[in-house]
């Protein structure tokens, strides 16, 4: 019998399971389980990234940056003065960076996250000449542009070798090079234009594609390439990406992104690329390559007041990246807020809460549906804390007197545990049934800490910040106290080592009444309210790595004073119930499930057709 090896001189591996390593790209193997030949292919696709902290249009970016170290700055959020806000992206989420000295929008950007450049822009009532450099922490003023310009037709390069061309006022042909200290005028564009594609190329090998030329129809498809001294006209760009497109890459290998459209440019031709999910224009691109690019922020075409912080990542890889997202979970049988939550995303318990009156009902979740259990808390309770697992949990505190009650759950029934030394409500709790921590709470607001050993509570060292309505995650020896309310919602996080509290990273969004999941070095914080004590709810989500918080996927429906998964993880969390408004009865029975970003190799089955 003729074999593959006889014909080709090589044999094919027989594998029971597909390889999961990227190094297997290009290989062919026979899967003995599915009785098929398979391979790993490179694919191009956009995936959802975490939203910016502040939605905006007209931002600028570090075009020489990367998908894992992006920078966005300035922009328009409703005021013609623009904003000075800077945000840094780490590949998973956004965190607050140092603010520009001059607020503005439609500025030019270049450089990287740790060596960024912002030039020109618009700040009511005029275009701007201001230039600033970013060192990864703060912006400093540098040599001004020779002319006030915004809405460039081309902006690329690094902090010490940047280039801009075109822009407004009036569609223009000017080109300026920056060497890190001064600006020099060079060869003019052949077609005067503004609001063109920005973000791909270098100071000596750039290109301008499309743009607004004023008048009607007002759109140019002209593409020109720059060689470090002059511009040469080449082929036209597709109309789908002609104005206000974002980009990444080089003069001979670039991706352009606008609305839901993308296109690639190889130095000669434009080719349609994969679709994006979010139909926004004036996005900002980040990335010096086309293998990994990103686009963020922008506004709806024709509606400059509808702006967004949406982020999408582009990957040309044998890996398939699936962005983090919240999905609807089961609906509880009794909608409530202020309940204590115990357990994980697929094995959860909620107990007590407030429905207009205090309740004691207990429900169990299996990852699909909630079941009301025949046993309830010993008494009605709300606004307490919970931790542990579905079969060995604990709730403590709450706003129903005496507020010091501890209840232990063994998977089938509740029994009373030792009373807290200081009764309180709106407190944080984390740990296990036999090693739990209670921190903060009120009334009045407190910083007191207590530890539970399975039978009694012992006073621990106090938190640094007195607060209530905070959330807890982690273990007795490695815990977190997150956010909360002092005289206003706060962003601060404190880390507990079993003895002392020390300051951790600040949330990007202040919030009280939030929920959380995970550990001290891999936590997820979500939901809550800002700016009031019992305010309009939010659904934003943040990830903590033990040092800093970054944004993540947003819930579909914001809720405050619900419950989380104190024994869950940062990649599999559950948010249950809570209020979507301050009304006593506006608490739906909904829950949402969080799944973190995943990466898998792109395995394809080979067919004969």
């Amino acid at each position, binding site marked *: 019998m003729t074999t593959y090896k006889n014909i080709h001189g090589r044999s094919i591996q027989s594998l029971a399971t597909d390889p999961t390593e990227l190094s297997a790209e290009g290989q062919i193997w026979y899967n003995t389980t599915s009785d098929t030949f398979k391979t790993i292919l490179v694919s191009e696709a956009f995936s959802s990234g975490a939203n910016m902290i502040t939605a905006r249009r007209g931002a600028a970016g570090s075009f020489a940056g990367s998908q894992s170290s992006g920078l966005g700055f300035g922009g328009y959020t409703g005021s013609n003065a623009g904003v000075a806000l800077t945000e840094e992206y780490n590949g998973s989420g956004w965190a607050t960076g140092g603010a520009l000295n001059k607020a503005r929008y439609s500025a030019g950007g270049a450089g990287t996250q740790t060596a960024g450049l912002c030039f020109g822009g618009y700040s009511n009532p005029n275009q701007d000449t201001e230039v600033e450099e970013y060192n990864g922490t703060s912006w400093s003023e540098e040599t001004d542009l020779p002319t006030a310009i915004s809405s460039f037709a081309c902006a690329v390069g690094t902090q010490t070798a940047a280039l801009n061309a075109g822009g407004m006022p009036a569609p223009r042909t000017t080109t300026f090079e920056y060497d890190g200290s001064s600006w020099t005028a060079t060869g003019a564009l052949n077609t005067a234009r503004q609001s063109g594609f920005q973000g791909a190329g270098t100071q000596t090998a750039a290109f301008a594609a499309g743009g607004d030329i004023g008048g009607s129809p007002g759109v140019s498809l002209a593409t020109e390439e720059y060689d470090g001294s002059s511009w040469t006209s080449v082929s036209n760009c597709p109309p789908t990406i002609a104005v206000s497109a974002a980009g990444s890459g080089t003069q001979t290998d670039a991706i352009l992104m606008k609305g839901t459209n993308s296109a690639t440019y190889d130095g000669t031709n434009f080719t349609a690329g994969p679709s994006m999910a979010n139909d926004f224009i004036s996005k900002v691109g980040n990335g010096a390559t086309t293998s990994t690019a990103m686009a963020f922020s922008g506004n*709806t075409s024709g509606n400059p007041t509808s702006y967004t912080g949406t982020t999408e990542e582009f990957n040309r890889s044998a890996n398939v990246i699936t962005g983090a997202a919240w*999905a609807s979970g089961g609906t509880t049988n009794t909608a409530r807020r202020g309940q204590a939550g115990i357990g994980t995303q697929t094995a959860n318990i909620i107990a007590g809460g407030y429905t207009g009156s205090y309740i004691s009902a207990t429900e169990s979740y299996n990852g699909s*549906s909630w079941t009301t259990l025949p046993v309830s808390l010993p008494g009605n309770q709300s606004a307490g804390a919970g931790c542990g697992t579905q079969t060995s949990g604990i709730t403590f505190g709450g706003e129903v007197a005496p507020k010091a009650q501890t209840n232990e759950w063994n998977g089938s029934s509740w029994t009373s545990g030792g009373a807290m030394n200081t009764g309180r409500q709106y407190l944080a709790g984390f740990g296990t049934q036999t090693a739990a921590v209670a921190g903060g709470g009120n009334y009045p607001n407190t910083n007191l800490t207590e530890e539970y050993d399975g039978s009694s509570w012992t006073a621990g060292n106090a938190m640094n910040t007195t607060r209530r309505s905070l959330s807890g995650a982690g273990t007795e020896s490695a815990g977190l106290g997150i956010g909360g309310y002092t005289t206003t919602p706060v962003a601060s996080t404190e880390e507990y080592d079993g003895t002392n509290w020390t300051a951790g990273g600040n949330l990007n969004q202040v919030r009280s009444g939030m929920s959380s999941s995970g550990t001290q070095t891999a936590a997820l914080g979500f939901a809550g309210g800002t700016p009031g004590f019992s305010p*309009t709810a939010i659904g934003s989500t943040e990830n903590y790595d033990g040092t800093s918080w970054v944004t993540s996927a947003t819930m579909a429906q914001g809720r405050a004073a619900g419950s989380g998964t104190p024994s869950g993880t940062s990649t599999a969390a559950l948010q249950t119930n809570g209020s979507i*408004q301050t009304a*006593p009865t506006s608490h739906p029975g909904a829950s949402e499930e969080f799944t973190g970003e995943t990466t898998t190799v792109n395995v394809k089955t080979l067919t004969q057709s």
Partner: protein
Amino acid sequence: MAHFIYGVAQNTGKGFFTAEDRRAFFLRGYLADVWCIGNNVEGARWLAEKNGVEKTKAEAQALITAEVEAAQAAWDAESDEYKATHLRPSDVTLP
């Protein structure tokens, strides 16, 4: 083309919206079972599949405002002790 469509649909729990849905289109939930949905093929299909009723932005806003006003009236009737610890329900404006 408008960036959002608006609709009323009851959250039926698990599977009402999936992680794939969330990656495919914008989705935000509000009072009165009002949903603000990204205006693309996937978003429109989702609303139809959930037996949702599409509303104009004004109609959707009116439904929310009615619930907010009812909540504000309920808050107004609460005790001073309650008001001291709970802010008055705030207005909600659709994007």
